[in-house]
Every structure is written in C-alpha cells, then in structure tokens.
C-alpha cells in the first residue's frame, strides 16, 4: 500500500474530535474514492495526511514510512500532490508563473521543468489562451483547471484531490476524471474526494464513505455502482 491511515484521530477544538479513528489505504495504480456529507470530515482527513493538521492519535504511513510529522512543504519531495479545498492559485502571478512554481520540487533540473510547463500548455487550450494573465482574474472554473495542471507537473506518486470537479462544467468534469484515470494508468495512487458520488464511484477502484468522522462503509467501488443512489440517500 502506498498510503496507509490507521486509527486516525484529529480535531480542532480541544476535547472534540472531528475524525474518530479513521482507517483508510490507497494503493499504487489505483483510485480510491472518499465520499460523505458536508462536515463529515473529508477535508480534515486530507489536511491531516498532508501535514496541515496535527493528529491526536493513530498513524499515517506513506510507503510504509511514518509521515505523521510531515511538514506540508515536504510533500512535493515525497512525490505527494495535493489539491487543496478552496482556491489555491497565486492570484497575482501569471498563469505561466503559477505553472513554473509547480516544478519547484525539481527546479534545479531546468530542462525538465521547462518541458513540463510547456506540456501543460499543450494539454490545456484554456491555459494557453491565458498564459500571461494573472491567475486571480481567471473564472472560478479556469482557476480549478490551472490548479489541476500545476499539481501534476512533477509526476507525483500519490495524488490527493479535494473536490476536483468543483465549479467545472460537465465537459471539464469529464476531462478531470479522465485525467484521474490517466494518472492511475501512469502508476500513481489517487485519493479523490468529491461531491459527485456518481463520478467518484465510477472512477474509483475502492470506495470509502465517511460519516460523522468515521468510515461507515467501505469496499470495492464496483460493488456499489448499482446502488449508488441508495448509498447517497442513506449515508450522505
């Protein structure tokens, strides 16, 4: 397993845990989906894995090594990419500069960094058209596209996505999930949180449902595909 979370306990206020012992794992070359109602603790879980929150109990292992004390700035070096909740472009930097910063982890390898940026522009016509525009002026969806592109520049091994489809048009949602499939094909492990249970279910190999800080259902995604509506109704 690429990522293993055991018995994870996390909270904000003293005394009240938001995650109350979560177990979850993500394998290489696979997509793991995580769904749950608003406030279930999905974002909290991802933030903790990525070092933005300190756990109160449990363990987080990446490649079998403990990463519970990871600083967010070490993520990239470990090959972990994280799409944060909310917007995370650098608004005053141009689209191009935003992408260049996506190569920070291997900035010393100039040729590779340059190539990665160019490839991103080839892939996305939206970004190409806005190359020299300040990222803060893009529309909500365009910013999301930029974030997705920036994230994949350094060929991460583990990709953690918090609501990648938020604010995207149906067409682009489709593309995002194709992209996820592509990452999986390239050997990466993907952990994806999204409100669109249907999409997550369709794209995932393994599915977790988080409810009030606990995993209440878990299993191969295929086993849910026919009863996804029921799942959503009952647990989300």
């Amino acid at each position, binding site marked *: 397993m690429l990522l293993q979370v055991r018995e994870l306990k996390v909270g*904000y*206020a*003293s*005394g*009240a845990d938001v995650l109350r012992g979560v177990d979850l794992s993500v394998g290489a070359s696979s997509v793991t989906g995580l769904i749950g109602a608003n406030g279930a603790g999905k974002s909290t879980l991802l933030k903790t894995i990525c070092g933005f929150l300190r756990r109160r109990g449990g363990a987080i292992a990446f490649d079998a090594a403990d990463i519970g004390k990871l600083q967010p700035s070490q993520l990239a070096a470990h090959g972990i990419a994280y799409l944060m909740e909310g917007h995370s472009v650098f608004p005053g930097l141009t689209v191009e500069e935003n992408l260049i910063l996506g190569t920070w982890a291997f900035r010393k390898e100039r040729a590779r960094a340059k190539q990665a940026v160019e490839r991103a522009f080839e892939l996305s016509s939206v970004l190409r058209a806005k190359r020299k525009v300040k990222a803060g002026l893009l529309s909500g969806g365009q910013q999301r596209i930029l974030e997705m592109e920036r994230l994949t520049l350094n060929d991460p091994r583990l990709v953690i996505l918090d609501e990648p489809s938020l604010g995207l048009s149906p067409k682009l949602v489709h593309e995002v999930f194709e992209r996820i499939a592509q990452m999986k094909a390239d050997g990466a492990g993907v952990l994806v949180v999204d409100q669109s249970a249907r999409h997550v279910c369709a794209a995932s190999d393994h599915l977790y449902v988080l409810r009030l800080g606990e995993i209440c259902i878990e299993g191969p995604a295929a086993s849910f595909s026919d009863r996804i509506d029921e799942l959503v109704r009952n647990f989300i």
Partner: protein
Amino acid sequence: MTSLFKNFRFPDRRALVICALLAGLAAIPSLVGGRYIPAVFTSILLFFILGALFDFMLGYLRIVNFGIAGFLCAGAYGSALSVQYFHITPWTGLLVGGLASAVIGLITGVLTLRLRGIYIGLTTLFVMETLRFAISNAREVTRGASGLTVGGFTPLFGMPFPRSEPITYYYIILALVIVTYAVLYAIVRSRIGLVFKAIRDDELGTSVLGIHVVRYKLFNFVVASFFVGVFGAFYAHYIGILVPTAEEFGIQRTVEILTIAYVGGRGTLWGSLLGALFLVGMQEVLRDLQEWRLVIYGLSLILIITVFPSGFAGALRQLGERFSSRAGKGAHISTKGDA
C-alpha cells in the same frame, strides 16, 4: 438609526465589571492623594480612552488610524484657540474640540470612503502631518512651534480646577472617560457594532445585503474623531502648552496609542485599560533606570506580544474560556469574541 440600538441590553456582566473597575480607579488617586499619583492616573486614563478609541476603529473596522494624534491635535488646538479668540469657556471648548476633530474626521472620511481599512488609516497619517505643519506655519494664529499656552479649566459650580492640583483634573477626565466609554460600548453592543464586525469580515459580502458600508465606516470614524477631539481639548487645558511636534501630535504619539491598544487587546475596548495601566505604569516604576527603562519597555512589548499574542484582554478571555470549558460548558472554538 434608532432601531439599530434595539438589541442593546445594558447591565450585562461585562458592563458591571467595567463599572466596578472604574469605581476602583476613581478611588485610588483620591485615597493615595498627593500630586504625582493623580497625574499618573490622568495619563493612564487619557491613554486608556485613546487606546479604546483607536481600537473602536481598529478592532471593529480594521482601520489602523495612524493619524489619531492629528485628531488629538485638532481637538487641542480647536479648543485652545476658540478659548483664546472667542472667549468661550474650556468646558464649551471640550465640545468645540470634539467638533473640530469630527469635522476633520468627516472630511477625511468622505475623501477616503472608497479606500480599504488600512488605507483610510494611512491616509490620516498625512492629514495629521498636514495639520501639524499648517499649525506650525500659521504662527500669527497658533504661535506655531513657539507653543500655544493654554489656560486651565475654569471653576464649575463653584468648584475650582487649579492646574497645580492634578486630582481635580483627574476627576474631569474620569467623568469624560466614563461617558465616552458608555457611548462606545453602547455602539459596539448594538446592531451598528454587528455591522462593523460584518464589514471587518467581508465588505463586499456586507454591501450585497443592502448595507451602505461607507456610511457605517463614516459613522465609526466621525464618532471616534469626535471623542479623540474632546480628549485633545482636555489635554490642551490640562497640559497648558501645545506644540506641533511629532512627539506631541505626530507619529510618536500615535505609536504610543497604538501600542496601548494592541497590548491591551484588539476588538475589546476595555483591553486598553490594562494596556495603559501596564505601559504607563511601568514607565513610572522604572523611572530611575534612565535609558535602560526604555530598553526594558521595548523588551516587555516583545515579550507581551509573544506570550499573549492577542493582548492582555485576549489572554484573560482565554483564561476565562479554559475556566468555563473545564466547568463542562461548550467546547467549541471561538476564534474571536466581542466587546
């Protein structure tokens, strides 16, 4: 705007605590007597209320008013000059000083309406400097850098206010502080105060609710300017000499006030009382250390803000919260409280 005060309940716990504190404050100098302690406490009260007024803008609207000393200046000269040229009493002068400052506040506010909080505050820095330089140059009227000598308060109801007896001035400022504080408190506890906080959080989000953000900002700013002016007028008649220097009415004085507001705690009004007690008090206690006194003063600023990042008031509140949560009450997070 009357309906805006609707939600205000007066004798709540906090208000009572404040009243008790003020009563205590009234007692100390009278009990101790002499001329020194009343003089020091006059300073403490003056800086407390200036800190609270600073915080009224800072803590509620995020206006860091770097020009506050300019409004003090407007009030001081406003009163002193009208006493001199129009022969009003210093008591009327308090009002005139307040109005002079409020008018400048209004003009500044109207000019800077469109600016974000920090810009309004910084713009006032230049209002302050312009005013100071203008006073300095209008020598025929203000005596400029030579200093304007100002008479003390005239007897009221047969009570004399000789400047040689600081205790009498202490009672004047105590009364002024109580009135001012009550007004500020009423405002921040009312709907207007709620709107202030909303504006502080998100201006655009407030305006799409149909709230004219600018009017509220202006209201806040003019009210604060008015009271700062009143205390400027008090200062003029208390100190007896006005000079338009940076130490008196420029950036140095602003920094003194700002420090007290921050050390006391933002967004609390009463925090400034702790700030003024501590900082003014410490300066007096350490007087004998001469230049080391200021080093210690600076170090304690660093220390205080590192140990109690949200000021004394914040520290007290946290203490209170820990207390109440241990008592089993709600354990949720409050990132920010109010008055």
